[in-house]
């Protein structure tokens, strides 16, 4: 029997019992809709999560720290056969020269005081300052960005967080306004304006004398690396410092004028830092300021040649090369961390979530399956005589079976299409509702439900397969009918 005849006969049969078949198809539609809605929620959440992480720059980055430091959570231990090394300029250079490495920059974080240049000194605010490379420009934080990015990596410019902008403007503290954009008027009051940044500079190269009176902030007291008490030795040795020991440094208070060029309402490269940073400087400029960083005190305890870093961020050309670069760095004797390590577990977690949602969504489809079986068994009973006639005029058992299969498949295809549309609509409506609530709560709207083409095709295919499976028994029952008995049937 030709395909178009099969389709025509099946279509005609479906039309003959249109109400019953429509209800069965609707049942399949509801089943598929529930499956699609559940899975598109799973996919949407995973996508949202991945996008947030991906835009944070973590997927193509490796955080490198010295094995001498405390191992952070999730840190991958270096090759234990290689002795630990200091994360200094030499190490930075080696990593920079590695294949597939695009850029290496220090994970810079310091504290300082800021005030508008036009403000009074007592209006200063203490906060954390960080450095941003040019590559951060493509991050999600700059999607809703007011102003512009740094003109160069050496520019004495600053990008500030919107909430810190509110503090600078002296606006009342509003926890709900956290992460929200400044109004245009508020932004205009800050953009292009100068701020005064007061920070502690680390002066290396020449160690300051013990209890130096020259610097109110400075100190090189206590023990040096040799374990000698400088106070006790003061009588035996001169006060001149050990010039070869680079662990000794002075701390000098500095002031720097910065121009505010941009305002962001979410933190750029958020995943790279543990605390909250309110002000960002161009990375090279920030490095040149030589600000005291939390790890500097720790570095005093160990010998290193030149400047050493608490952590370096290594950006890789493609995320799939992260593991390879990570391995190379570990072989050098450093600890590494990348989101690839963490995301393995998360991918698994999302897989379980999708599976759970899929099973939950499939329950309705299981009910629809029984509906199809019922409808087709009824059709076989009702059309016994017709089946007998068809066999008498030349239909083979296979022809009869195929007619019922096409009927089942058609209901599956129609139900699948209906279900995908309904599932998509359900997702849109819930998404809309959720976003209305999110906006009211002053949270940025997000796409929670996402329906990829693969899910559309998958759901349609699944629906047709389930329907064909449901049609197996009725179709074979119809095919097995004895034509003589069937023709006698009233």
């Amino acid at each position: 029997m030709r395909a178009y005849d099969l389709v025509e006969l099946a279509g005609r049969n479906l039309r003959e019992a249109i109400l019953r078949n429509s209800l069965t198809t609707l049942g399949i539609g509801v089943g598929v809709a529930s499956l699609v809605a559940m899975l598109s929620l799973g996919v949407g959440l995973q996508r949202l999560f991945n996008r947030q992480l991906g835009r944070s720059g973590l997927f193509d980055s490796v955080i490198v720290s010295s094995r001498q430091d405390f191992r952070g959570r999730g840190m991958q231990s270096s090759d234990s056969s290689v002795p630990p090394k200091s994360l200094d300029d030499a190490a930075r250079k080696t990593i920079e020269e590695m294949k597939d490495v695009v850029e290496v920059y220090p994970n810079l974080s310091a504290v300082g005081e800021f005030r508008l240049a036009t403000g009074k000194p007592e209006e200063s605010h203490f906060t954390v300052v960080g450095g941003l490379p040019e590559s951060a420009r493509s991050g999600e934080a700059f999607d809703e960005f007011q102003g512009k990015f740094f003109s160069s990596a050496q520019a004495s410019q600053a990008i500030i967080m919107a909430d810190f902008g509110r503090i600078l403007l002296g606006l009342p503290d509003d926890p709900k306004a956290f992460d929200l954009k400044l109004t245009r008027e508020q932004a205009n009051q800050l953009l292009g304006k100068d701020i005064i940044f007061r920070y502690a500079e680390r002066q290396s190269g020449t160690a300051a004398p013990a209890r130096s009176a020259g610097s109110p902030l400075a100190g090189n007291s206590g023990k040096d690396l040799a374990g000698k008490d400088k106070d006790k030795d003061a009588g035996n040795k001169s006060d001149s410092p050990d010039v070869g020991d680079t662990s000794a440094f002075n701390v000098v208070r500095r002031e720097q004028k910065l121009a505010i060029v941009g305002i962001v309402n979410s933190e750029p490269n958020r995943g790279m830092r543990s605390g909250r940073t309110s002000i960002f400087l161009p990375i090279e400029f920030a490095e040149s300021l030589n600000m005291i960083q939390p790890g500097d005190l720790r570095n005093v305890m160990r010998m290193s040649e030149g400047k050493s870093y608490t952590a370096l961020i290594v950006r890789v050309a493609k995320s799939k090369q992260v593991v390879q670069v990570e391995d190379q760095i570990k072989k050098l004797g450093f600890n590494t961390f990348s989101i690839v390590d963490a995301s393995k577990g998360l991918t698994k977690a999302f897989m379980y979530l999708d599976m759970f949602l899929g099973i939950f969504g499939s329950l309705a489809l299981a009910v629809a399956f029984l509906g199809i079986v019922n409808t087709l068994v009824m059709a076989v009973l009702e059309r016994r005589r017709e089946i007998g006639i068809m066999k008498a005029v030349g239909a083979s058992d296979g022809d009869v079976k195929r007619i019922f299969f096409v009927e089942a498949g058609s209901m599956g295809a129609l139900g699948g299409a209906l279900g995908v549309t309904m599932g998509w609509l359900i997702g849109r409506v819930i998404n809309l509702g959720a976003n209305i609530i999110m906006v009211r709560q002053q949270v940025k709207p997000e796409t929670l439900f996402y329906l990829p083409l693969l899910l559309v095709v998958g759901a349609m295919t699944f629906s047709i397969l389930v329907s064909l499976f449901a049609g197996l028994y009725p179709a074979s029952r119809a095919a097995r009918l004895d034509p003589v008995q069937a023709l006698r049937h009233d």
Partner: protein
Amino acid sequence: MENNGNGAEAFRTVSLVRHYKMGRNIIPAVDGVSIAADRGEFIALLGASGSGKSTLLNLIAGLDRPDSGAIVVDGHDLATMTPFDLAQYRRHIVGMVFQSFNLVPTMTAYENVELPMRFAEVRRKERKTRVLEALSKVGLQDRAGHRPSEMSGGEQQRIALARALVNQPKILLADEPTGNLDSKTGAEIMGLITELNRTLEMTVIMVTHERALADRYAGKMIFLGDGKVLGQTSNSNIQGVIV
């Protein structure tokens, strides 16, 4: 005018047996029947109810399988054919007409006549020509769009006849074709069958319990009783066709 066929064999049955189980009892519906028909022959199977006429017809139609014996058509034994080959046989070799017409009630006359050609995979264009030709032969080309419920019994049987003819079968099997019709309409249908038998040289096997009908149209009469052939006779008193 006597119609005894052209001498070439259309089919033959050899010691055909078909028993049915009814509870503990075994009913010998067909019990060792051996008959033969020549091409173009018009045979009437006569007998009382339960004599095995319809069972024999269903066996020749390939709708039922014998318990033993053979049904040989064109050198092939239906008893040994696969279900698919039997379906092919029903498509191309035999056409059937039933007492209760057996039209698909949800299909129009056109669709009912077209149905066997769907299974025979005849191309659409050719189908249309053949359906209209068959409907024209039975004089119902203007009723093509009507459903069986909109037609009289005689019209329905004509449509059934058109459906049986449309694949140009060699053998026409008619099971009490006038059983549900009044005498005038019955005569019209019989006239049509006889005409087809003559003009197309189609072998006709008709089951009937009306001796008069057999006397009038059949060239050979086979009498059945309790599943056995009680006797057969040639009929030289055929009265001709009245349409």
